[in-house]
């Protein structure tokens, strides 16, 4: 596992790196602020359903998806907000979906757990643990059979790695050398269950060898390290060399779902991880490397917060679906 940014940079490279990191930071800040806003709105009681947030895991979504093309694909989980924003699903349409409005990315039919927009390659999220993984295999197969060089990034959790669907998907992607990048966001818990209680091995990525596939463990809260690993795996996939497992060690800054105080987690562990907040890591690097000043960052943050306010406005002003709309879209026509 790489624990620090080992790159030595030329000036031009450094400008590029600065621009990239700033953009990644902005995205991560968007993810965080979006979810904080959602959380607040939930507490207010204006949103139906439940929430599964990925606060603390922003570097995973952003680092992995930063260099994807619109034509590339992403499959997600019950915790899809970050993935979807990073893949380019419109903020307005996501917010509207949370408000169950007809302008939502799923027209109010999907809800939080099925967020997505296939027009930007975000397969509507599948909330069955590991259920999206075999689907990602099919998307990869499709990319390959249609002779594109598109790739699929397939997110799953540490808990999901004990599902049969994980195994079948891994094996198939490996034997067919599909352009799939499997990304395990190992936040150490599946709901309330610590990974140690349900898995005998240290790293999920070590399961890659069971499929004859490369696996890599990466510090998942450092967006640049994540992005480097992504670059390698995506390049491999695009070249037709097959899938990779990337395991990102990370941590939820929030409950598993609404109303979860995480009483099952060790408080020391929590503290250690909270100190490794991906936004802080990136912010510190930006300031240290003088990629931007504190004021410039504040500008960025303000801009993002305004976008979120606008999205809330948009969502609130959007029409509810009509009850009878429920009868539409059972079949495609």
């Amino acid at each position, binding site marked *: 596992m790489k624990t620090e940014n080992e790159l030595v940079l030329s000036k031009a490279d450094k400008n590029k790196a600065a621009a990239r990191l700033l953009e990644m930071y902005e995205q991560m800040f968007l993810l965080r602020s979006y979810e904080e806003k959602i959380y607040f709105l939930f507490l207010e009681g204006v949103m139906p359903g439940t929430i599964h947030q990925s606060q603390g895991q922003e570097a995973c979504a952003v680092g992995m998806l930063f260099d994807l093309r619109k034509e590339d694909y992403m499959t997600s989980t019950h915790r899809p907000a970050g993935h979807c924003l990073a893949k380019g699903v419109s903020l307005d349409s996501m917010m509207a979906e949370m408000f169950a409005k007809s302008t939502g990315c799923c027209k109010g039919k999907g*809800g939080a757990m099925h967020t997505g927009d296939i027009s930007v390659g975000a397969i509507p999220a599948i909330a069955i643990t590991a259920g999206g993984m075999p689907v990602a295999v099919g998307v990869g197969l499709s990319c390959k059979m249609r002779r594109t060089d598109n790739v699929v990034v397939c997110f799953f959790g540490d808990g999901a790695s004990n599902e049969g669907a994980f195994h079948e998907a891994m094996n198939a992607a490996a034997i067919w050398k599909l352009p799939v990048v499997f990304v395990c966001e190992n936040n150490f818990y599946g709901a309330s269950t*610590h990974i140690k209680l349900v898995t005998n091995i240290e790293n999920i990525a070590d399961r890659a060898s069971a499929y004859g596939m490369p696996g890599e463990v990466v510090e998942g809260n450092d967006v640049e390290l994540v992005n480097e690993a992504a670059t390698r795996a995506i390049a491999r996939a695009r070249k037709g060399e097959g899938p990779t497992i990337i395991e990102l060690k990370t941590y939820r800054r929030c409950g598993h779902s609404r109303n979860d105080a995480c009483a099952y987690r060790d408080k020391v562990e929590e503290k250690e991880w909270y100190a490794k907040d991906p936004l802080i890591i990136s912010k510190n690097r930006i300031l240290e490397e003088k990629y931007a000043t504190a004021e410039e960052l504040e500008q960025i943050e303000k801009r993002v917060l305004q976008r979120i306010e606008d999205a809330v406005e948009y969502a609130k002003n959007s029409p509810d679906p009509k009850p009878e709309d429920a009868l539409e879209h059972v079949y495609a026509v």
Partner: protein
Amino acid sequence: MAKMSIAEALREAIREEMRRDERVFCLGEDIDIPGGFGGAFTVTLGLSKEFGHERILDTPISEIMIAGAAVGAAMTGMIPIADVQYGDFLFCMMDQLADNAAKMTYMSGGTVSVPMVMRAPVGATTRGAQHAQSLESFFTHVPGLKIICPSTAYDAKGLLKTAIRDKNPVVVFEHKLLYGSKGNRAEKSALSPVGEVPEEEYLIPFGEGVIRREGTDITIVANLLMVYRAMEAAEILEKEGISVEVIDPRTLVPFDYELVLSSIKKTSRLMIVEEDTRRNGWGAEVAAQIAEDGLYYLDAPIIRVATYDVPIPFAPVMENFVVPSAARIAEAARKLMKA
């Protein structure tokens, strides 16, 4: 008598049976991790304190294994109570339930038995299509399974205890909105799921429905949440002079046809209300069975009010539209009176 919610009643049933019989144990995801949820709806919360983590076994997220392990343990001297967090996930273990649990006794010529329980919360609760289904009818169709669906605390305890002592695989469908963990349904009606539960032990036999409300004009058969919706509708209708008899079958396999037949002899009209989607729902079986055995008692067509044949939509306005409401039931009843 103690007042308790369905979640508490289920927990009590498990506790008593685990005390009574050391072969009984629980397994499932997050069922009693210290500091955790006690299962998705708190039913197993705290049980590990008394019984330890071996008998309250937190599993990996592996539904095929959970069901298969229950089958294997049941065949060899144990009595597992397994669960899924949402009934929807039963699809992930469908093979183990339908091909192994249900068929082992038969395939072995009766030399093996599979005394296991599988608990599954059902019902639409604005969580979208994959956390909302009512799956009863997928399982009533599997020979070899027994299917129960308690709608009150009293029934929950009595039926679950019977299920645990049954030598066969029993699937228990519990309704998320009836658990009563949040207690907000407690005052709504006399049949509130927070109900009286006797101190002394009792078991409720399978295949015995109950009349929740007597009436003379229409018989409504409904289960789980729909019992309450039907009761609500019955109250509305009463004011309009329509007298509704509400039957809660309590178990779907076996099913108390006698009770329904004797009711329609009186009312001559039958409506079935289910939250499961309509096409091939369990209501279809009840309607078909009565169309075969009770046709001559009927003065009107058999009506089913069920969730429309769509995946469950997220938006409450749509969800409320597709799942039967008291208003929809009442409206169907009015029509039925004119038929």
